[in-house]
């Protein structure tokens, strides 16, 4: 007894010391900004305050202004639709590719995996320049190839000129970038499904479709749900992609998603109060989405 007690006390101190650097940098880099934003979102913080005037407390005025602002709701709705559509399409394609990987020859699998890895490893900014070039209205390959299809007239079609096609382009790019992660994760999950289980199912006469829904999907459900949640969260934050597409196309507010909307409020309008209020909305949305993911991880952590 007497030898255990002191060791336990020391064991209680050591982990806390080990955590100090991580906690300090998180408080500085993330904690303080969050608190500052919560405070600032309740203040009038515009151009005058940038030059040192005190910021008056206005309570929930910023939020009320935003809530009655049709522009914000349009941006929120656009962001959510973009995020959900892109995430689900990414998940579907990624899962299909993972299933495909289990059914092909070793050589073909290697080729596919290398191609996916190349796409995955592309820095997002470089990927954006290439895609903007591919979708270029005059000399882009995509219009050229589509134009070759008989009856399709895509010569000089400007993809970035209307919001719908603009967001289709953005979605295609994000899907291209995100599918590799999904495919590899799901494939890793699939390789855990034992051959014996599959053979038993086959002997029982289950066809491919039944095997997928009845056996494979339940077994890889944890991977699928984690990957889907991560995609939803990541697809809410598509700032780089939208910023660069706007560089190449229109600067109009109709092409904003939440990230670029906040950026605009903060930089061109210099309205930090409102920008903070929208930021808080984004954070709340993210945490709400993340909650299921985090709960799942914690449950497994305890097991």
């Amino acid at each position, binding site marked *: 007894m007497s030898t255990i007690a002191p060791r336990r006390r020391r064991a209680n101190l050591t982990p806390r010391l080990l955590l100090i*650097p991580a906690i300090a940098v998180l408080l500085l880099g993330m904690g303080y900004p969050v608190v500052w934003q919560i405070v600032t979102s309740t203040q009038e913080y515009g151009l005058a305050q940038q030059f040192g005037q005190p910021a008056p407390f206005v309570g929930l005025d910023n939020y009320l202004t935003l809530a009655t602002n049709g522009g914000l709701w349009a941006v929120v709705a656009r962001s959510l639709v973009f995020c959900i559509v892109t995430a689900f399409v990414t998940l579907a394609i990624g899962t299909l590719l993972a299933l495909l990987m289990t059914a092909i020859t070793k050589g073909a699998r290697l080729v596919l995996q290398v191609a996916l890895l190349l796409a995955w490893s592309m820095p997002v900014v470089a990927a954006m320049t290439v895609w903007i070039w591919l979708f270029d209205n005059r000399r882009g390959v995509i219009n050229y190839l589509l134009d070759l299809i008989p009856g399709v007239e895509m010569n000089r079609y400007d993809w970035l000129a209307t919001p719908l096609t603009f967001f289709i382009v953005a979605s295609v790019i994000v899907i291209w970038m995100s599918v590799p992660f999904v495919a590899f994760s799901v494939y890793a999950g699939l390789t855990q499904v034992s051959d014996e289980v599959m053979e038993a199912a086959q002997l029982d006469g289950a066809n491919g479709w039944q095997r997928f829904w009845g056996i494979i999907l339940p077994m890889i459900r944890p991977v699928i749900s984690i990957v889907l949640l991560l995609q939803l969260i990541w697809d809410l934050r598509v700032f780089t992609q939208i910023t660069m597409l706007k560089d190449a196309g229109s600067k109009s507010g109709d092409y904003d998603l939440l990230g670029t909307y906040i950026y605009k409020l903060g930089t061109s309008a210099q309205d930090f109060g409102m920008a903070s209020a929208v930021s808080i909305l984004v954070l709340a949305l993210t945490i709400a989405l993340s909650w299921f*993911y985090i709960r799942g991880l914690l449950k497994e952590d305890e097991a």
Partner: protein
Amino acid sequence: MRTRKMLLSALAIVIALVWVFPVYWMVNSSFLSNAVLQSFIPTFFPFPGTVSNFTAVADPSFFSALGMSVAITLTAVFFCIIFAFLAAVAISRFRFRGRKSFVIAVLVVQMLPAEGLFIAQYKMVSSVGLLDSVIGVSVIYVAAVVPFTIWMLRGFVAGVPADLEEAAMVDGLSRFGAFMRITFPLLAPGLVASGVYAFLQAWNEFTVALVLLPSEAAHTLPLWLRGFVQASATRETDWGQVMAASTLVAVPVIIFFLIVQGRLTSGLVSGAVKG
């Protein structure tokens, strides 16, 4: 069964070609002269090629951006790995009060998007006069990357059975000695994987850099590259040069990523799958 496998394999190769096409197109265009790229019929192979695009974009602004990127990335990776390693050991080798709260906090923070924080981060960094500096951005990068790195390393630390350590302790090593001699060497792949993860995050980061590095002299490679697309709004774009610039930014990342990809994917997956 055999023909089905062959058909699916052929399909997989077609998909692979489609997926890799943008990467190929970047490299291909980077070797073509502007005169060739001006044609309305695309040139699918870089013959006859030229390296003039590369010599044109590798100007002082490129080397300045390269220098900033290297400085910021190395600083961020170095501190991120140390901090994350210590924290990962704490949460996977010890049971203590507050452990669960810390894990929850890490997971929540990991989810916070830069897009929801950059206004405050800009205000904070500018108020201490660290805009356009390596330190200002690095602090934010470490904070942004450390949560996932902790989570990733935690999986690796937990993957080394504590029994191994205890056996070494029974053989007379101290707890610290057992950790250093038994667990630490087994963690090398985890440290490499999380180091690469942190490297890629910092090297490719755009949003925070855009906000915290406003002057052109302090631009990192992603901001430098974006400059080419921005310029395209006001003048005819020289796509050969833009693609050469993209290739310069992308190729080192791709090579690095491919060398360690096995470890990186297993790291990402063990972070995501094993939880």
